[in-house]
């Protein structure tokens, strides 16, 4: 499961709970049964570094 899929899944889960009143336990069971993440921590370090660089670049631009 990719990081984007995790967030999409979690968002969908929230909507099921809040708008369709699906029991929290059922959503959690569904999520858990969908399998674990294959995300690699080393790859995630690179993603965080890219995000930090992007934020720093934007701040520099805004500061003119």
């Amino acid at each position, binding site marked *: 499961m990719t990081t984007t899929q995790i967030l999409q899944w979690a968002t969908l889960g929230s909507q099921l709970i809040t708008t369709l009143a699906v029991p929290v336990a059922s959503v959690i069971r569904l999520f858990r049964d969908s399998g674990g993440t294959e995300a690699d921590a080393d790859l995630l370090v690179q993603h965080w570094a890219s*995000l930090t660089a992007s934020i720093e670049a934007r701040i520099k631009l805004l500061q003119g």
Partner: protein
Amino acid sequence: MGWRKKSLTLALALVIGGMSLLGCGPKTKPTLVKVDAAIYESIKALHETAVVLGQSGVITPAQELQIQQAILPVAKLGESTTRVIAAWTSGPTPPELQRLVKEMGLLTTRIIAVLPGEAKGKAALLEKIAIVQQAIAVTLAVMGGL
């Protein structure tokens, strides 16, 4: 109670519950990576939303600058936390990850404070923040094994 208020209340309850569960018992590496990945996606979504709102003139450059400056330390913390997770083998949840989750919660409060009253773009950011909080709450609740 409106659906938005109800949903935010639920999210808050889940965040508090999830945060307390995060510290309980030993975790597996995929669990920690999954929580970290969800937080990464959340911070990235906030950064990109602020850029879009800034570029389209919905929020002022000064407001966007304040928001990006609030996001930056959390992103740096995320990077260092992920290095800890990458080196982690077993045992309780690293305190760095618990701090990151806490900072994520504080960040949303800081962003809301940047946009006073009925400022333009506030609704869009609040909506994104609500989704982010719900996403993290659900992920943490799942990871905590409710």
